[in-house]
């Protein structure tokens, strides 16, 4: 074969292969072309093998041409394969299109009870003020629930707490237990327990369930939750109580919350305090919820009575402090604008599912 023949052959093959590559519509056809041209017994391979028949003088030029074409073809094949592969993926992705407007597959979401989220917020606020949490039993003695708190038997202030009595075991009809065991009517007995268990300086809040002989209506129940607070040290004053309560109210209801600090009465505090916030329903202009006063009482407080300090084993000549107590139910109702206390204990998920776990 002459050099010119060979050169023409190589050029023709190049042109033919280029056309065939362009015409190939899938990767399989390209692979077939590669095999046909560049494989072990491919046509270009055969040409390269036949270079030995070319005169040695002309061999470098023709070899360069053949190898150049081989390189170009390899590149063209790779490029064509890339093009065709991309087109396949696109086709697949197109085929995999989903209806992205469909709703998600449901994941179950649980809800915390609003009473407990509010309790958590109380703890966080008072944690920041340096308070610990302390707890006491719900089944209490008359001594702890009343007498240690400066409420003697048949004292008129006992009217503030109608008591549920634990029955004497085996009595039928049931009569109050001879040992005077009752259900605590407030969390205040935990003050005594905290004072007996801890050394001043004491700074504690005491959440818990309480019980009273009270008919059930939209704002009363025989069971409810309170949070008690107690500070005992050598210097804490009525002014400190006021400052702490104002900060608490702002933390709970917002920076601009209006507050009112006024005299109250509890046998276990002296002086005693009632603490109001501007009505959360009407903002203070007066509405049925605040009995047209513009204010809502959210807690009672005062300086711990010396008798109570003494009952707690604290020397009232050296130590003083304040205590406060508030209804978790009432504060929860005010925060979430819950119209009826009974909803809180009703286990009705139509009600409970609306409360998000966050704020």
């Amino acid at each position, binding site marked *: 074969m002459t050099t010119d023949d060979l050169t023409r052959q190589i050029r023709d093959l190049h042109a033919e292969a280029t056309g065939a590559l362009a015409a190939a519509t899938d990767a399989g056809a390209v692979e077939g072309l590669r095999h046909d041209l560049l494989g072990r017994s491919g046509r270009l391979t055969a040409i390269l093998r036949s270079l030995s028949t070319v005169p040695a003088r002309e061999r470098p030029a023709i070899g360069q041409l053949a190898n150049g074409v081989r390189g170009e073809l390899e590149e063209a094949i790779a490029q064509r394969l890339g093009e065709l592969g991309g087109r396949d993926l696109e086709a697949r992705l197109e085929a995999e299109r989903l209806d992205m407007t469909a709703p998600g597959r*449901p*994941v*179950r*979401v*649980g*809800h*915390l*009870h609003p009473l*407990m989220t509010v309790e958590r917020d109380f703890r966080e606020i008072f*944690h920041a*003020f*340096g*308070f610990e*949490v*302390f*707890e*006491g*039993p719900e*089944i209490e*003695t008359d001594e702890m629930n009343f007498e240690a708190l400066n409420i003697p038997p048949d*004292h*008129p*202030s006992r009217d503030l707490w109608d008591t*549920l*009595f634990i*029955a004497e075991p085996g009595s039928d009809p*049931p*009569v109050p237990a001879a040992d005077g*065991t009752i259900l605590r009517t407030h969390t205040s007995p935990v003050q005594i327990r905290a004072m007996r268990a801890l050394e001043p300086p004491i700074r504690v809040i005491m959440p818990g*369930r309480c019980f009273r002989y*009270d*008919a059930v209506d939209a704002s009363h129940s025989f*069971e409810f939750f309170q949070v008690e607070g107690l500070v005992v040290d050598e*210097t*804490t*004053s*009525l*002014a*400190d109580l006021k*400052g702490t309560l104002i*900060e608490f109210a702002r933390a709970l209801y917002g920076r601009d919350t209006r507050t*009112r*600090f*006024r*005299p*109250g*009465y509890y046998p276990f505090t*002296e*002086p*005693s305090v009632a603490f109001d916030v501007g009505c959360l329903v009407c903002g203070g202009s007066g509405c049925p919820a605040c*009995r047209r*006063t513009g204010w809502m009482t959210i807690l009672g407080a005062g*300086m711990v009575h010396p008798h109570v300090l003494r009952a707690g084993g604290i020397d009232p000549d050296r130590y*003083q402090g304040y205590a406060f107590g508030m209804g978790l139910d009432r504060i929860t109702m005010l925060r979430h604008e819950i119209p009826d206390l009974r909803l*809180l*204990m009703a*286990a009705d*998920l139509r009600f*409970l599912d609306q409360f998000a*776990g966050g704020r």
Partner: protein
Amino acid sequence: MLVPLAWLREYVDVPMSPEELAEHLTLRGMEVSGIEVTGADWTDVVVGRVLAIERHPNADTLWLTRVDTGDGEALEIVCGAQNVEAGQLVPVARVGAVLPGDRRIERSKIRGLVSNGMLCSAAELGIGSDADGIHVLGTADEHAPGTDLRQLFGEVVLDVDVKPNRGDALSMIGLAREIAAFTGGTVRWPDATVDESEESTDGHVSVRIEEPELCPRFTARWFDGVANGASPEWMQRRLLAAGMRPISAVVDVTNYVMHELGQPQHAYDAAGIHGGEIVVRRGHEGEVLETIDHVARRLDERMLVIADRERAIGLAGIMGGASTEVGESTTAVILESAVFHGPTVRNTARRLGLRSEASMRHEKGIGGELPRLAADRAAHLLQAITGARTGRGIVDSDPSDKPARVVRVNVERTERLLGIALDARLMADLLAPLGFAVVDVGDGAVDVTVPPHRLDVVAAEDVAEEVARSYGYGEIPAPLPAPALPPFRSDPTEPRHAVRRILAGLGLDEVVSHALVGAEDLRRTGYDPADGAVIRVANPVSEAHAILRPALYPSLLAELAENVRQRRTDPWLFEVGKTYHHQPAGVTVPGVETAGTGRIEIWHVGLALLGPRTPRSIGAPARDADVDDLKGVIEALHVAIGAPVPAYRPESVDELHPHLHPGRAARLLDPAGHPYGSLGEVHPRVAEAWGIAGRPVVAAIHLPRLLALVARAPAVPVPTTQPIDRDLAVVVDAATPLGDLLRIIRTSGGPLVVEARPFDAYRGAQVGEGRVSYAIALRFQPTAASDEKGVEKALNRISGSLRHHLGAEIR
């Protein structure tokens, strides 16, 4: 206490609106809980002049009146009262008027004649007790026809919440004192001058006090010549506005003085008292007294009674007896004005259900010279109103002068308690308007002389409160909270809140329910409410809340049932709450709360699942929760809180919870094999009793025991070798507990086995009758590359143990 403002103004100037007064009183601790205007519920009742009257043509007892109500046109009104006369000014309820009790006046036909309204009696207007006659307002030009009647009778009434320690403020005078203290005004005392007759009181009354502790003071005045008709209209109106019912002149005077001065009194018909002797003594067991409400009261030793020499004639401080009740025929009266022991009065009144305005005041204490002052004031009124003659002198069990109480107060301590700057002079200035005298005794102390009516002020702290009230609570500074104590703060509630967060995160809804449940709740759940271990309440509000729950299960089932009633198909609930128990003798249970009363309280976490975890969706059918879902939640809770996952032991017949399916009930076991909870499917009969369709699963876990399992373990470094996974097919007898099989794998495989998870179970011909093939995915974690041989050895040990202990065939 209801306080008619016009009445109050008689004793002190009130230079402000009712709203401002309410605000001031509230800020000084006398909380005003409401301001009402009586008569505000009248609409369209006006003054009318009767122009003419004539007999009703069809009825002898009725009149046809023509009445001018100021609009120029006379109204024809039919009237049945016999005291109506031409020229009178009378209250006219026009058509459309509304009277107390929501009584609406309409144009009506009475015996054939149209009546365009109604002429009103005092009772119809709620301003007096007289229901028989028209309430005549005048006969000359006292009022212009057409005047709204509210202008004549409308009365502003404050509802004042006087605190239990301020019995001294439970009267017009008491509030007047408070008001004068902040307005700088003067209290005007009522006239208590008495014009005594020649007849000596001593000759008609004597008093013997057998229980001086329970009756510190008893005064008695004697009257004759009493004409006990109705009290004057102004007095009746005031009493009604204050919430008291007018009875008769004598009784009304005692009630009037009680509201005016705060001293309860009782008037006895002297004719009913044998020998004129009054004895103050304890009741006798079995003694019976008929009180003026005509109820026979059985007396006992705990009650203080007033008696004559033969029998009880009254319950001291609470209610008089029927035998000495004053009536229209009464001519001679003995008036009691006494102080009784508050707790005794309170106890008796409560036991008899007879709490009254009088008993309430005795409970809270009556101070100073009040009994005698009130006796004289009542005498003054009785003379003026009933024409009574007052006997000469007064019987008084303790006429001695009482020394004023003096409280020594350290000024610096008061400053420290209140957080305000004080000195002796400022304290004197603050306390003087409240009637306290302050003397500087040096050494930073003052002596504070307490006015006799302030029984509540006995200690320095009480004085501090008066200082603060006078200073103004609003003026007290409000420093920021003191800096936090060192940051470690104990919080026993935190682990419970962690449990709540985890369970909510697992998709369960939190419920808070009552600790008090009913016998029916226990019965439905399969428990015996008569069980001696159950703690009952002696005075439950209702039978549905009479028992402290001995388990969370009745609550959980009630919660499921509630949601089933609401057509909820998938309640997955949890509750963190206490159960209540008698403490077993000699046993102390760790982690429980007790007041040392022999009763204990144990926190539990309860779980209740019914229906699918998620509703059906495209490509994911719904599947109802079963015991394995419940275990999954329990195990996830353990993992999340850092406790080892429990083992399960089927409940045996002896220990089976009555509410659980006998074949689907288990105890949770901790790694030491101690039970700390139970779980299972609810017994179909129990589910039915609660009206729960479907197959609920429930669990309860002893929370202190669960939390005790949480231990802080040192972190394990990441292994340097790859884990090795092997699947094992084990054919065993179908009755073999899977828990046992897995335990054998873990114990025989040793620490290399980090996971053994059954993922398939096959029963069928290929494994033989009564056999089951479990496919178990094992993951081994060698500690070094050389341990791969150890894994093979462990597999051999596992196979060997399974064959040996369970007769297993390994495939």
